Every structure is written in structure tokens, then in C-alpha cells.
């Protein structure tokens, strides 16, 4: 049994320790918000937060989660409300097909936690592990900038 905290709840899973975390999340736990793109660490679609830090779930094995705290896009915000970063992505039109969005959002949340006031260069650098094949990135950078601005104006996140 592998015990960890998933989106705020203690869970125990009975899967082989060498199973990829992205498969554990999607296939065993039904959390399909986490996407698998390249499976090689180059696209960022499978990003999750482990103990608050962005990690690639395609290059993590289930046993490595023992005792850790995991946040997937499903756990960013309780209930039906969107997390402010998710809302900014919607409002700025930063989502087209949406495949890269969960990973982008999680990296943005982590980036803003470390640097609440990033400039556009810092945002591009912070998000540089993610590929988006639709948007050309401009609106994604806009969304992270907008989320930072709103946070500065007192949005509690």
C-alpha cells in the first residue's frame, strides 16, 4: 500500500510501486485532468504538485509518492469555484484545446507562490517547461500576469 495525501485527502492505493504516477492518477483514481503528452518530460502536460513543487507525473513512480502531498488540477480549488489562476486563464482566453492547460495552471500557481510579481520574461521562463500547440503563448503569459495583478489587489489565493 502506498499512502499519501491527494488533493487534501489521505489516500492509500494498492498498485505496483513502479507504476507511473500519471497512470495511477488517470487510470486507477479517475483523475483525468492530468494529461500525458510526450511521456518524456518535455511537454509539461502531466505536471502535478508534489509537496507544493511542480513535478512531471510521467517521470515519477507511484512508490515515490509515499508520505507526500499531491495536488492535481482537480484539487486546486474546493467545490465548483475556480482557482484565481484558472479564472484568469478563462478570462484571458488562454485556453484553446485545453490539453496543456492543467499543467500550465499548476506551474503558474507555483510560480506565483515563489514570485508574486513576475514580469513577462520571468513568466515565460517559469512556464518554459510547458508546450502549447494552439495559442502561441501570448494569452497564457497574459493570464499569469492577470492572475498576479488580481492577487496583488487582494484576491486570496
Amino acid at each position, binding site marked *: 500500500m502506498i499512502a499519501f495525501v491527494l488533493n487534501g485527502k489521505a489516500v492509500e492505493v494498492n498498485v505496483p510501486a*513502479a507504476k507511473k504516477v500519471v497512470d495511477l492518477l488517470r487510470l486507477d483514481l479517475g483523475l483525468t485532468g492530468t494529461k500525458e503528452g510526450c511521456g518524456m518530460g*518535455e511537454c*509539461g502536460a502531466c505536471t502535478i504538485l508534489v509537496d507544493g513543487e511542480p513535478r*512531471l507525473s510521467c*517521470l*515519477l513512480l*507511484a512508490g515515490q509518492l509515499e508520505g507526500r502531498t499531491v495536488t492535481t488540477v482537480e484539487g486546486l480549488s474546493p467545490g465548483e469555484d475556480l482557482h484565481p489562476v484558472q479564472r484568469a486563464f478563462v478570462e484571458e482566453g488562454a485556453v484553446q484545446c485545453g490539453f496543456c492547460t492543467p499543467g500550465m495552471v499548476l506551474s503558474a500557481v507555483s510560480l506565483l507562490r515563489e514570485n508574486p510579481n513576475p514580469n513577462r520574461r520571468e513568466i515565460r521562463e517559469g512556464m518554459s517547461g510547458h508546450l502549447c500547440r494552439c495559442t502561441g503563448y501570448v494569452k497564457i503569459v497574459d493570464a499569469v500576469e492577470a492572475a498576479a495583478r488580481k492577487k496583488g489587489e487582494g484576491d486570496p489565493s
Partner: protein
Amino acid sequence: MKNLYLPRSLEELWRVLEREPKAALYAGGTDLLVRMRAGMCSPPALVCLERIGELKGLREEGDGLRIGAAETHANLLRSPLVRERLPILASALGTLGSPLIRNMGTLGGNVCTASPAGDTLPPLIAAGAVLELGTPGGRRNVPLRDFITGPGETDLRPREVLLSVRVPGTGAFNVQHFEKVGLRNALACCVVSMAALLAVAGEGVVEKAVLAWGSVGPTVVTCPEAEAVLVGERLSGERLRRAAALVRERVSPIDDLRASAAYRREVAGNLLFRLLDVPPRQPGFPAVSR
């Protein structure tokens, strides 16, 4: 499915390796798990080193640093000690992979993967890094330069583990330049890289020069002849042209999908000319450039 072991100490690791001598070791997984997925290797068992306290941490040692093999690139990049004592390594770490890869990959992994394109290898070799290798029976120290014997090939012995990377401080070098040429800024596998450490006297004369190139040979390429051309002279276009010609003779690049051998050879020499643009720093202000 394979067994995965997560030892929490070297003691536990030795016991695991006793039972699973053919297990593959990894810390970040950014190389091994990719190779496994591509079918390039299929070890009978896996050992993840991320929880072994003895492989973590960063401490001052003389004027240099002792870096635990399982320290992540992100931790090292954040460390004021690395920026202060090994600015050239910090520059290289900033170009490695992406923030996500840097959160997972480790310095020891970059060393043991021994890729000709390993981003930390030219600066570590230029700085004179020495590896501390351990088995249950003892420890030995091997210069990184001698440890990597070919592309993906090292002198790591059965059941031996890289414990730490000891790097002398580079404070004596007031010009430190690392540059990586890739096809894009993030997530770019290196086409050519160069690490250069120069000690330049007040009147502009180069007193010491150490140069190392990545991705232009089976292992990191050094060129003592080019270093000798620079030492005892002021840096000038003329001197650098002579050094560049020697480097282009020394490298043995290959054609691959990222660049041709001819391009790599040309650029390996050209990167030297950047040194004209890096002003020597005053003592106390570490030079960081890329």
C-alpha cells in the same frame, strides 16, 4: 511489474544492492525513465535515491563546495553558495532542461548519465570537480575528467554509487563564461557549449585559462594548446583566432538531427570570441554570464 526500492540511508541502499545487484539506480528519473520507456533498457529492478539523506546537501569545503549527488538542479540554482563560489555552474544550470526538469533531475544524475551534451559537465570539468564514489567496502575519489570514458560510459563499478561532487571554488577566475547553443532556450539538448575560466590581471593580461567544450566529442573536450595561446597575452581578436583554430582541430563532433559536425566545429571556435565581451569582474563580485 518491476520492484521499486526507496532506501532512506546508504546502509539500506547497500542491503538493497546486495539483493538486487542488477538494479538500475535513479534519483530524478529524467534520463532513466525516459530510456526505459523508449525500450532502450529494461533493468530487473529500480532503486530511487531521492530519500537518502547522505546524498543530499551542499556544504563548503575549503574554498569550494561538496555537493550531494542527489541534490536537484533547482536547489543548486537557488543556492547563494553556488552562485557565489561557482557562478559558471549556476550559469549552466540555468540552461538545463526546464524548471520542471530542474525540479527533478540531479547533479549526480547529469554526471552518471555521462551524455556528451550534459550541461553541467563542461563547467564541472573546467573547475576541476572530483567525484566521491562509494561501495559498502569503501570510498574512492576520481576526477570527473577521468570518470567519463565515452558517451554514456563511466568508470562506475558494480554496486558503486556516486556520493558527492566536490568542486574547488572558482574565485581565482575573474572571467567566467558559459554559453550553450541550442535550438531553443528551454528544453534544448545542447548543440555546442563552452565553459571558460580566465584569470585576467589588472593590465588585461591573461594569467590562467581553462576551457572546456560540450557536445563536440564523445566526452567533454579540453584544449591545452588553445589555453596556452591565451596565457601571458592580452585577450585580442588575433589571439582568439589562433586559439579557435586549435580548438577546431581538437574537437571531433558528429552530424546528428540537431546540427552538422561542420557547424559544431565552427561554433566551438566562434564561442571563444564571446570572451571579448565579458569584462573581468572586481574581487567580491562574482562574474556570471552566459
